[in-house]
């Protein structure tokens, strides 16, 4: 039952992608303005608090992946799109922040609502 050295090295080289080949439709397209939902989960989430309730722009659609918020607590993979979202530094940190700095953060479809 224990994985052998050769099996382990092969597994390390192959990796274990979180991508899921499922025909899930994206809710947003690149260029769309999105609002990060104001959620306060007590369980696992990959939405950092510094983007919660903020507005950004969809930069890229990475495709469909496992959703950690459910998968971490035995509630299934809930495949959905993951997007790269662009935020201005001023949106996140206030008017005193640099006007030409930006942050790019990967977010799951469930974290977003349209603006």
């Amino acid at each position, binding site marked *: *039952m224990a994985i052998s*050295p050769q099996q382990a090295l092969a597994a390390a080289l192959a990796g274990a992608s979180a991508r899921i080949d499922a025909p899930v439709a994206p809710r947003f397209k690149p260029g769309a303005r999105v609002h990060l939902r104001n959620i306060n989960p007590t369980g696992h989430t990959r939405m950092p608090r*510094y983007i919660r309730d903020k507005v950004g722009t969809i930069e890229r659609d*990475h495709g469909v992946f*496992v959703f950690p918020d459910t998968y971490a607590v035995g509630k299934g993979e809930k495949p959905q799109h*993951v997007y790269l979202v662009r935020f201005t530094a001023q949106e996140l940190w206030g008017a005193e922040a640099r006007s030409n700095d930006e942050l790019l953060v990967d*977010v799951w479809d469930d974290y977003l609502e349209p603006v």
Partner: protein
Amino acid sequence: MSIKHNRPLTDIEIRVKALESLLVEKGLVDSATLDALIDTYEHKVGPRNGARVVARAWVDPAYKQRLLSDGTKAIAELGYSGIQGEDMVVIENTPDTHNVIVCTLCSCYPWPTLGLPPVWFKSAPYRSRVVSEPRGVLQEFGLNLPDEMRVQVWDSTAELRYMVLPERPAGTEGWSEEQLATLVTRDSMIGVANVQAPAK
């Protein structure tokens, strides 16, 4: 194989030995497998891999385009792939934009190209500050960027793994790929440093 210590074990050493021995006893893990994985990630996988990717992109414009449009596939062309690098995105530094990468929530890092992350990358000070004061953090690393340059901070919150393609320094015209790779540092591929021009 047990190592003879000439001092009592610390609590954490006791916990680790206990866990490994229980898992081995239950037939769940093989100590030789641990040894092989440790050897691979301690000695075989590291930033020299990423340096070769960068050098290839510097000398081969078509490769660079492939790298920027499908990082995973282009990196795999050089034989680098696998765990914590299954979905790679490479972002290039340009004269007007500087990129820097972090994982604020934990320690996500592209193992196949950069190896295992340094302690500072995984620690609270970097993770907390680079998103809100990137220029201050970069200055501490010795990188002073002009005001007009845009800074982009990439927070690896999902399973995409990011790597910076730093700018090729001046004074390297005609250099071979192998020579160029020697200049590329891990820190330049995280984005807390640029690649230094060769000393004259």
